[in-house]
Each structure stands twice: as structure tokens, then as C-alpha cells.
């Protein structure tokens, strides 16, 4: 901050702000947050988002169960999380205030739709006294705005029914926040045209509410709340704002493109994975086929059938869906065919927390099948990196003829961040080799085909139906090494079990080495995987800029581990592993390297904040 006097009404420069929009499920808070994010992205800020919504489509109106929130941090410098405590809370009703006020920083600003603070809504939210009147919000700056009234007022002559007019009040809130943080208006106005085009009254009402909110900020003496967050200095390039599920879908399209092979998605709708099915079903011109199956089992079965036919078979799921796919993954391991199983992890067990994030399927990915059934695991760590994680999963599946588990989670799936669009010419080629010739000679000197004859990587040929002279039968029964004929021989089963393990272990030679970020001479190393990357990075940056020494290793490959991991971890006195589970990676690393990993866990359906990890790491630093 400088002490230069600002002209009255000018926006004050701030480095970043964390805004949380909260309202009833029907109030359009996800949309409002999305538009605020989009305008900020186009403006050039760095940003990260955290949509936080209930599993019910419309929980009883006005109740705590129905609160839907969207948190976004925008900044003029690089950030990795949606922020710790919001600076501003927009509360569209008493339930939203009650549910989210505890997250707000002390001294933060609350903008309430005061029209919604009437007795019925207060009672539904469990308030006995009106919090706007009883002094309980004294620690905050409260700005009361009659959003419903003012929205209805500007919309009254625009030909919309009063009920529909009221529904535009989220645009009023967006307009007001757009003024407060000097967001450009055009992206939102253009979006309204595109989204509601053809329904002119709705377009007019939404635009009117948006302008009214903006004007309200300008005229209602809110000048002390007028800020600007200048664009971040990011690496030069063309950027887009992308969430994890979209990036992952595009990564799959890109992988198939790089493999010059059709993509087949077999999927059954499940939160939060369904958006990948939605996205891929739009891109059939890329030779993508999407199949909405009757259940999770059929979804993975169809994907495996397509892989058998030479396509890149993909299946997407979450939560209990992963359990249902286990049997078919086992078959894919036995058949040694490419398959990518994408798990957008959510809170469990059982139905658990469908819309909340968790990273508790690592052991499931690693061991969740009967028999000795190893499969590679790739994990995405931020929204845009989901693109590359998808390409990597396909690369491994195709090259090593194996199912691969790709782990993302609800936080990455729905969270957005700016992404520097890569030059497509830099993407890796994914060579696909189908067998076309017999690979063995029988006693009569004739060429024959052995489906389980392996190359130097222990990979068997991918001989697809339609190829003359290579007809063969495969199945889930144990196969004889080489010929692939059914075999119950004890020695052969042990050999095949060892080979199945060795061929996955060997992939370690073909994945990137683990990279150490931060201080190589630190005594403490933070080991992470998946979406904890943002919070770990934020926390370690803060502590290192405060003079502490800290190292960070983040794993993208969890089976096999990078070959240098054991050696790297052995160089530290203490290894700390924060996870959104009860210590699953910790246990794998302890078992593999006999390193006494210190596990930190969180099971609240919410990602870590950088602040939480900062204090946990500080405790460790202070011994």
C-alpha cells in the first residue's frame, strides 16, 4: 500500500481478493461465480475456484441443506488455490449467511440480499433473532442491499413475469461485485446474449439487473469498497479458463488424435464425472464414440470391447462406480488390453458425499481387485494439468497394453484456473501398433499366431478382429505363457503372475523422475499427490518466503512410483504427507521404502487451504 492520496471514487489497487457467493440452490450462485471468474480470466488475473454445492438439485428452499456456494480467488500474481478465508461473502438469504459466515476473514465484508431476511427465511435457517439486527455480525462490514426489490423494479416494464424477474437477482449481485472489483462488463453481457438469445424478455431482465447492480455500487456510496486487481504477470501466451473435467476431456481427445485412433467412451452418469461424458459426446467429429451404458459395469465392459476392437477404450466414474468396475478391470488386466479408467474421486464410503471432494480411492486403484492384479495409476494435480494427465494415461495404456487408473477429484473436476494453451505440435505422439503377421512357426513350419508372445517390454501383441490369419481366443481363465491357451499348470500361473507384475513395474523406466521443488537441503520434505498440490504449493511458498527451508515432491505417477523416489525421500529427516484420506499414500510409501512418513489427513469433503497446511508444516518445522 502507498500513502498517496487517491482521487475520490478511484479504485484502490489490491493484490488479490477472495469472493464467496452463497445462496439457495435455485439462486444461480454457480452461474454467478462462473461469470465473475470468466470476466476475471479474460481480464488477465490469475485465479482458482471452488464450487461447493449440495447433492440435491433443489433442497427445500431457504434451508441450510440447500445452500450452494462458489468461492473464487483472483489475483495479480500466480496463485494455486481458491484462497483460505474469503474477504467478501455475498449471502443471498439467511441460510447462506449462517452456513458460510464462519469462513469469512475477521473484518471481511458481507453483502446481503436484505429482502430475503424476513421471518420465514430466518426461521428456516434456524435464526431466532435477525443477525442483521442483533449485533452478531459486529466483526464484519455488512452491506445490506434490497436485491430482490431493486431487480423487480428495473425489470417491471420488460415483459417478464414478476416471478421470473426476481430470478435475475443473481445478475444484480454480479453487477455489484463487478463494480466493486472493476470487472469488465462486456464478457457477461455477451454471455447473456448467447445463453438466453431468443428469449428477449429474459435477456433484457438479466442485463437490466446486471446494470442495476453495477450502478448501485457507483451511486450508493460504496466507494470505500471500490478496488481493482490488475492482471497477473503470467508467462506470455494465449490463455483460457478451464476446469478439470473439461481439460481432462480435451486431453482424451488430444490423446486419441495423437494416436490417430478412434476414442470410445463407455460411461454411466455419476457425479462429479458426468461432465466428461457430456463434453466428449460433443466431439464425434474427432472420431469419438460415446456410449451411455445401462450401468457402470456395462460402461467399462463396452469400453473394453471397443479396446479389443482396436479403439482407445475409456470409462469414467466416481465413488461407488469404481467398485462396480473392478471385475472388468481384472479382466482387462488378464486380457492385457488398453483401457483407461477415470475416477473423479468424491467423498465415500457408499454414496458418501457425491458433490464434495476427497482423495480416498488410492488404495482402491492400487489394490481394489481380487487376485494379484496390478495396474498403473496416474493422478492429476490441478485443473489444467488434467489435460496432460489424460494424455499420459492413454500413452501408458496403449504402449503397455494395460488398464490404467487416472485419478482426479471433485475439486479439480469443477475448479477452474487459467491455462496457457499448449502448442499442439509439442504434444507427444502415441504410436499404435496392431499385429498383422503370425509371430511363431508351428511344427509343420507354418506361421501361427501366439497372442501372449511378448516383446522386450513384456507387452503382448494387439491383434484385433478383422486381421486375417491371426484369429485367436482370449479370456479370463489363466493363459499359457506364449500360446495364450487355457492353462491350469501351477508353474505357469506363478510365471504369469510374476510377468503381470513385472510388466507394470517396468513402466517405471518410462515415466518422468520425481522432481523436488524448493530447498534440496531442507530437513523436511512434503510429499503430495493429486489436488493437494495447490494448497501444498501455497503453504510452502509462504513458509519459504518467511525464511524456512522446505522441499516438496508431488507425484503424478503412483504405480509404479518414479524410480528415484526412494532415494529422494531418503535424503530428508522428515517426510510429511498431507492427504484427503486417512493416509493412503503414506502407507504405500512406508511399505515400499521403509520411510517413516508423517501423515496429515483431512476428511471434510473440502480441499485443504494453504493456511491449514502452512500451520501444519510450521508445527513440523518447529519440531
Amino acid at each position, binding site marked *: 500500500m502507498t500513502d498517496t492520496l487517491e482521487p475520490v471514487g478511484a479504485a484502490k489497487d489490491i493484490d488479490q481478493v477472495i469472493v464467496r457467493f452463497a445462496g439457495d440452490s435455485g439462486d444461480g450462485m454457480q452461474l454467478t461465480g462462473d461469470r465473475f471468474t470468466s470476466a476475471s480470466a479474460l481480464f488477465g488475473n490469475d485465479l482458482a475456484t471452488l464450487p461447493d454445492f449440495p447433492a440435491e438439485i433443489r433442497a427445500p428452499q431457504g434451508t441450510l441443506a440447500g445452500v450452494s456456494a462458489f468461492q473464487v480467488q483472483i489475483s495479480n500474481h500466480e496463485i494455486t488455490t481458491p484462497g483460505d478465508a474469503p474477504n467478501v461473502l455475498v449471502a443471498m438469504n439467511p441460510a447462506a449467511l449462517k452456513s458460510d459466515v464462519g469462513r469469512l476473514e475477521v473484518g471481511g465484508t458481507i453483502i446481503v440480499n436484505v429482502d430475503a431476511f424476513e421471518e420465514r427465511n430466518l426461521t428456516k435457517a434456524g435464526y431466532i433473532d435477525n443477525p442483521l439486527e442483533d449485533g452478531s455480525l459486529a466483526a464484519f462490514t455488512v452491506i445490506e442491499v434490497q436485491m430482490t426489490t431493486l431487480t423487480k423494479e428495473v425489470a417491471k416494464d420488460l415483459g417478464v413475469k414478476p416471478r421470473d424477474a426476481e430470478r435475475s437477482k443473481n445478475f444484480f449481485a454480479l453487477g455489484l461485485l463487478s463494480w466493486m472489483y472493476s470487472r469488465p462488463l462486456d464478457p457477461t453481457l455477451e454471455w447473456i446474449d448467447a445463453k438466453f438469445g431468443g428469449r428477449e424478455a429474459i435477456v433484457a431482465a438479466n442485463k437490466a439487473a446486471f446494470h442495476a447492480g453495477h450502478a448501485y455500487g457507483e451511486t450508493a456510496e460504496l466507494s470505500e469498497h471500490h478496488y481493482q486487481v490488475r492482471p497477473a504477470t503470467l508467462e506470455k501466451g494465449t490463455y483460457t479458463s478451464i476446469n478439470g473435467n473439461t481439460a481432462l476431456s480435451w486431453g482424451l481427445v488430444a490423446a486419441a488424435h495423437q494416436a490417430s485412433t478412434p476414442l470410445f467412451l463407455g460411461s454411466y452418469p455419476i457425479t462429479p464425472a458426468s461432465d466428461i461424458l457430456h463434453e466428449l459426446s460433443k466431439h464425434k467429429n*474427432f472420431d469419438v464414440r460415446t456410449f451411455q451404458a445401462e450401468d457402470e459395469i456395462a460402461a467399462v465392459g463396452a469400453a473394453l470391447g471397443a479396446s479389443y476392437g482396436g479403439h482407445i477404450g475409456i470409462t469414467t466414474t466416481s465413488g461407488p462406480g469404481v467398485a462396480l468396475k473392478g471385475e472388468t478391470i481384472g479382466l482387462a488386466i488378464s486380457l492385457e488390453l488398453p483401457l483407461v479408467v477415470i475416477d473423479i474421486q468424491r467423498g465415500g464410503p457408499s454414496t458418501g458425499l457425491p458433490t464434495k471432494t476427497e482423495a480416498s480411492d488410492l488404495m482402491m486403484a492400487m489394490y481394489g481387485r481380487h487376485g494379484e492384479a496390478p495396474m498403473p495409476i496416474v493422478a492429476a494435480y490441478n485443473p489444467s494439468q488434467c489435460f496432460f494427465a489424460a494424455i499420459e494415461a492413454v500413452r501408458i495404456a496403449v504402449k503397455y497394453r494395460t488398464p490404467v487408473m487416472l485419478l482426479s477429484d471433485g475439486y479439480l473436476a469443477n475448479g477452474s484456473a487459467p491455462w496457457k494453451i499448449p502448442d499442439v505440435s509439442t504434444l507427444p505422439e502415441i504410436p499404435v501398433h496392431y499385429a498383422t503377421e503370425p509371430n511363431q512357426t508351428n511344427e509343420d513350419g507354418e506361421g501361427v499366431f501366439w497372442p501372449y508372445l511378448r516383446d522386450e517390454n513384456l507387452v503382448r501383441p494387439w491383434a484385433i478382429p478383422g486381421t486375417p490369419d491371426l484369429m485367436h*481366443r482370449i*479370456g479370463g481363465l489363466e493363459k499359457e505363457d506364449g500360446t495364450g491357451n487355457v492353462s491350469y499348470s501351477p508353474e505357469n500361473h506363478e510365471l504369469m503372475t510374476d510377468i503381470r507384475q513385472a510388466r507394470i513395474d517396468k513402466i517405471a523406466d518410462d515415466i518422468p523422475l520425481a522432481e523436488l521443488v524448493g530447498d534440496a537441503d531442507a530437513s523436511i520434505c512434503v510429499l503430495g499427490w493429486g489436488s493437494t498440490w495447490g494448497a501444498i504449493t501455497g503453504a510452502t511458498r509462504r513458509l519459504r518466503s518467511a525464511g524456512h527451508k522446505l522441499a516438496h515432491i508431488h507425484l503424478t505417477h503412483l504405480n509404479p512410483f518414479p524410480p528415484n523416489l526412494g532415494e529422494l525421500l531418503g535424503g530428508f529427516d522428515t517426510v510429511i504427507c498431507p492427504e484427503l484420506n486417512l493416509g493412503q499414500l503414506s502407507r504405500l510409501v512406508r511399505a515400499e521404502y521403509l520411510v517413516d512418513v508423517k501423515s496429515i489427513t483431512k476428511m471434510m469433503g473440502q480441499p485443504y487451504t494453504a493456511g491449514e497446511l502452512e500451520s501444519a508444516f510450521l508445527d513440523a518445522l518447529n519440531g
Partner: protein
Amino acid sequence: MTDLSEITASDTTEVPLTTKADWSSDQAVRWCPGCGDYSILTAVQMMMPDLGVRRENTVFISGIGCAARFPYYMNTYGMHSIHGRSPAIASGLAIARPDLDVWVVGGDGDMLSIGGNHLIHALRRNVNIKILLFNNQIYGLTKGQYSPTSEPGKVTKSSPFGSLDQPFNPISVALGAEASFVARTHDMDRKHMQATFARAHAHDGAALVEVFQNCNVFNDGAFDAITKKANRDDMLIDLRHGEPIRFGAELERGVMLDDAGSAVLVDVADVGADKLLVHDEQQPDPSVAFALSRLASTPSEPTPLGVFRAVDRDEYTAASEAQVDAAKQQQGPGDLNALLHSLPTWEV
């Protein structure tokens, strides 16, 4: 590197003439001696040369059970997959590769119990797969428990006091699942099997053929009352498209619809030949086919055999290809760079 399109491109050379031996794999067949599966295998292997198709374009997919060993014995591509899931796996293969002939083989437990869900959905979607359901009314490979087609009260190892289950009628299930082709045959009549399987192959869409199959170890003689040579005339009702439905040594018996729409057995002499139901397998409404499927609830009553239903309906894999082709025509072939720039962008 071989492109997928090189493999899927239709071979324009003449399909080579083959014999049964060309369609038989080198694997020793391991069903129990006397099992009905042998005659079904023979019927399929004998029929294949007549279909004018290539071995490399033919795939047999099975689940688990005695019947599911079938693919090992065919010199084609084949997959012995997991219990109940073969219609799902076959659907994925058929959608990815419409150039292939995809057959599915399974028993009554595989298809109607653990895999019932996949069966009905494959049928309603009308995916171009040919499903041979070997119905022996028993679990064979697990050594003799009652199946979803076992008769009520059946005493087995898992039902010493009699089964409490109401069985499925596979033909009724298929018709209820919107199947476009439904037929029945039996393992004692190779010619009838061959003709019926060939009809299924010729059908454009999902086809279900129920095959009465004798399990001589755990359920021997289950179909004797209708399929033994001496009983056939009186107990098997041959369905012929466009002809009145008659049976009996002298064709003295027949089927007509009563006032409630149920199919009933009649003596032709009593009702007159012109009252008999004329079989129409192409009737869009499946009600009459369903009524025919209800004539016999166990294989101890006169039982219809042949094609119950064969109607034209949009086939799934062709429709799926049409969507892909239309997308390529309308949007042009996929442009990855354009895709990555399809959301709002900004320059730094």
C-alpha cells in the same frame, strides 16, 4: 504402423470357400460327454461356411458358464469374458467395429440372472449382435443349482425343499425388452438350429435365439417331453411366417387367439381352419408374439419353435456411425488446435 482403417476396410476379394473344419479351432472340446452343447457347436460350425463371411471378421463373445466355453472351439476371434457381461462387451465391440459379425453365447444363468440387465438393454438398443442363449434350466458349471429358468418347486442342491422362484420365459423377456428378432430352437434338431441361427445372422439388429439344451449331468431330459423324436409332432409348434399355426402328426391341432387376446390350443376340426392364427413375425406390435410365448410355461406342454418376431427397426451401430459421419461433415474433421481455443481466450 497399421491404421485401424486398413483393417476395417472391406476386403473386396471373394470370400474363400470354407468347410466346417476351417471354423473349428485346435482346442479339445471339454464339455461333458453327451452334453447338448456339442450339437449346438456342430450346428454353428456347419452353418458358418454357408453364411459367406470371413473367419477373421467373425467374433464370438461369451460370459461364464458351460456354454461360455464356446468361443474356444471356434476358429474365429473370440473372448471368454466375465459372468453376465458379454452383451455389454459385445455391444462396445460392435459399436466400435460395425464391420464385424459379433455373436454372443451364454447360458440361462449368464444371460438371465447375473447378466439379465445387459441382455435387455442390448436388445432394446438393437445393437447388431447375435445372441445364442443356451437354456438348460440349471446351473451346470457350479454343479447343479436352480437357475432363473428352472421350473417352480425344482429340487436341486441349493433348493432341497424345492425352488421358490418364478422362472423367466426367455422369449417373453426378449419381447418385453423390445427385441427386434426373437426365435427358439433346440439341440436335438441340427437343421432347425442352422436355419434359425442363419435367420438371426441375416437380421439387421440384435437377435436373440433361445436354444433348448439338455444338461445330461444335472438336468437330464428336461426337454424330453417335447424334443424327443416321438413327441415332437404333438409337442412342438413350428412357427412359419404367413401360415396358419398348426401342429400334430396330421396337423390336426392349431393355435388361435381367444377373445381376451390369449393364444390357445385348439383342435382344427372343432374351430375350422380359417379361425387359426396366421403367424406374422413382422407384426410391429409384439402382443401376438408375446401371447405365443405364453402358450407353454414349462417344456411339458406344446411349445412354439421358430421365429416369433423379426421386425425392421433402426440398428444401433449404424445409427452411431451416422452420428459420427454427420459430425465430421458438419463440423469438419477434428481440429485439435481449434478445440483448445474454443472457450473464451485472452493474450498475455
